[in-house]
């Protein structure tokens, strides 16, 4: 019995230390809602329609000393789409667009991050949307970094990219001006 307890304790300790080593340094502050996944698409070519995904989570590694070792992972709940119009949201969640019953999440996982200077860089990674995974590259900017007033440490980034809807198997005809959607990621990470 004693031996069993010791074994359990040892393996628990091993698991804990292993997860600590792999854990991301920053968790995206979705709890305090200092992070946004926004999108915008042209309406008829005459104006912009804005929307966002209200539910997502993610984490990243970043160290200003070795920024090219950074990594990020974001998981978006596609059912949380919100364009401030329930009927339109229902249509966008349906089979004509995101088909969220079948594809309830979209994910992004970086494969390479390169900073040109202290505050700007490029992220390449695999983006999965509507069941289709593609490698995308987009530019990011660091907004700022430092202590927060409540004893924590934060860093924030933004990045934006344009996706062709038909690349992801979304072929509903919204008109020639609306073939692409711009996705913007605005995140603040809290260091663990």
């Amino acid at each position, binding site marked *: 019995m004693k031996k069993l307890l010791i074994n359990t304790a040892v393996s628990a300790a091993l698991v804990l230390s292993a997860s600590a080593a792999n854990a991301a340094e920053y968790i995206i502050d979705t709890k305090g809602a200092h992070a946004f996944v926004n999108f915008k698409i042209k309406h008829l070519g005459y104006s912009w329609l804005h929307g966002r995904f209200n539910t997502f989570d993610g984490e990243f590694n970043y160290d200003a000393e070795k920024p090219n070792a950074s990594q990020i992972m974001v998981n978006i709940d596609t059912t949380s789409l919100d364009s401030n119009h*329930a009927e339109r949201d*229902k249509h966008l*969640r349906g089979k004509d667009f995101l088909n969220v019953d079948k594809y309830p999440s979209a994910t992004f996982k970086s494969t390479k991050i390169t900073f040109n200077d202290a505050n700007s860089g490029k992220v390449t990674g695999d983006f999965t949307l509507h069941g289709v995974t593609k490698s995308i590259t987009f530019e990011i900017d660091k907004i700022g970094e430092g202590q927060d007033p409540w004893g924590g440490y934060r860093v924030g980034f933004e990045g934006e990219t344009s996706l062709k809807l038909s690349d992801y198997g979304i072929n509903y005809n919204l*008109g020639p001006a609306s073939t692409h959607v711009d996705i913007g990621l605005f995140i603040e990470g809290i260091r663990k």
Partner: protein
Amino acid sequence: MVKNTPLSYGFVAITLHWLMAITVIGLFGLGLYMVELTYYDSWYKGSLDLHKSIGITLAAVLVFRILWRVLSVNPKPLGTNSKINQLAHTAHVGMYILLAVIVVAGYLISTADGRPIEVFMLFNVSALDFVFDDQADIAGKVHYYGACILIGFVILHALGALKHHFIDKDKTLTRMITPLKED
């Protein structure tokens, strides 16, 4: 003869019956058609506005019809099989319930973000003060599947009427077209 008698339906019940029959079947067709329209169809917006306007009107007529039925004498079934009479009665009540569920669900789709429903560009029906999670999506499923089940009931109901007319050769169908004269 405006009111029902134990023998026959009156003109009010007959008019309500056929008016709503045409409206319900029309709305079902319009609903299936409008969701297939693409963004650049000129009727993409108009079809939806019309569906909602007719739907709200139907809801008002439904309330009146249910009140009329509850407050009226109901003609006795002409069929002699009590089990089939019971089935027909269940189908009638089922259709009233389904209609109510479908119009409420339709209302909840369009008002899920607090926007009112504009009826024939004449007046607005306000949203309720509360919304629930995924309201438009849940109400949408109820609205769609409810309508499909209702149409199943309508087909059953129509087949029953035809059976009375052609097989039983009774006046079940004809008394829903013109009131029977009292003997």
